């Protein structure tokens, strides 16, 4: 919540400043002069500079937010990947950590195609304290012969100091003509 509050403070401050400047009184009887073209061009370039600065500030705030919300020593990221996919048509993945639902994601046809082309989807980014945790992923979709298919995979992870990355990989097991669901840790 801290970065959001920080953002809100920054925005509120800027808003107050903006409002104060915007409502500066114009002297009675004073006609506002039409701006010269050169002055307008100058305003345009200043607006452009201002826009660039806002974009830079936004990027910095985003990075700051990520760092504050998910510090490296408690960070856990979970990714979904797919290999081949002949025996499984992915519909959704639900993720639980220590029996608490933390993420649920419906995959569209386009997203499944992206996964099949080698894309990796970050389904969860969060914090975990050090120690042992249980991660359970439930995959739903259509299995062989277009049957509804629901399968879970569980992994006990030991969270130490430093970021933890977990990959949920869906692949085909040719020998059994069945999909296979693997949960793998990356340090």
């Amino acid at each position: 919540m801290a970065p959001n509050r920080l953002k809100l403070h920054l925005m509120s401050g800027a808003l107050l400043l903006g409002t104060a400047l915007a409502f500066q009184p114009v002297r009675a009887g004073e006609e506002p002069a039409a701006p010269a073209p050169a002055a307008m061009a100058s305003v345009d370039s200043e607006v452009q500079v201002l826009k660039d600065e806002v974009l830079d500030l936004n990027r910095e705030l985003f990075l700051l937010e990520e760092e504050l919300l998910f510090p490296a020593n408690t960070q856990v990221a979970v990714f979904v990947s797919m290999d081949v996919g002949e025996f499984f048509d992915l519909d959704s993945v639900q993720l639980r950590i220590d029996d608490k639902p933390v993420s649920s994601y419906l995959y569209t046809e386009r997203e499944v195609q992206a996964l099949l082309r080698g894309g990796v989807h970050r389904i969860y980014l969060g914090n975990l304290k050090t120690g042992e945790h249980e991660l359970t992923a439930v995959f739903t979709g259509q299995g062989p012969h277009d049957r509804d298919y629901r399968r879970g995979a569980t992994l006990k992870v030991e969270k130490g100091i430093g970021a933890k990355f977990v990959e949920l990989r869906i692949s085909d097991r040719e020998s059994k003509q069945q999909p296979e669901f693997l949960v793998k840790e990356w340090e």
Partner: protein
Amino acid sequence: MRTQFLAMLLTANLLPALAVASGAVVPGQPAPDFALKDAAGDNLRLSEWRGEVVVLAFWADWCGRCSDQQQELAKLQRKYGERGVRFVTVNIDRDDHVARGAAARSGLLVLHDGDGAVARQYDLSNLPLTVLVDAHGKVRHVHEKYRGGDAALYDEELAALLQE
């Protein structure tokens, strides 16, 4: 004068941002993204229609005005459907058979939000709720409830969005 102009610009840009911080769907801000199932069971995601104008209409079976609105939306779909406007209705009834029946009857795309997760994202408090999203994925117009004549307003707004 220049300072005043910049200050006004800054203020105008910041007001919607503050409103978003309070959780409302605000014109000028990105439409909250979501994925839901359609009547055929396919998953569809709002952000995948980027580049098209989207009319998003939330409704329920028990809402009488919603069915009046849907008839008008079906007419607008015939007018704008091939001109880059996508009509998406979101049914919030718990049971999905209502959504499937409506999709077959109206010819509109019906997504089912049985657990109300998307309705909460859009801060739904009145039905129907209609949100017009531009080709960049930003909310441009928000209409709560439905009165006769609103369809003409949607028509005007869609024509303007298509000309941008």
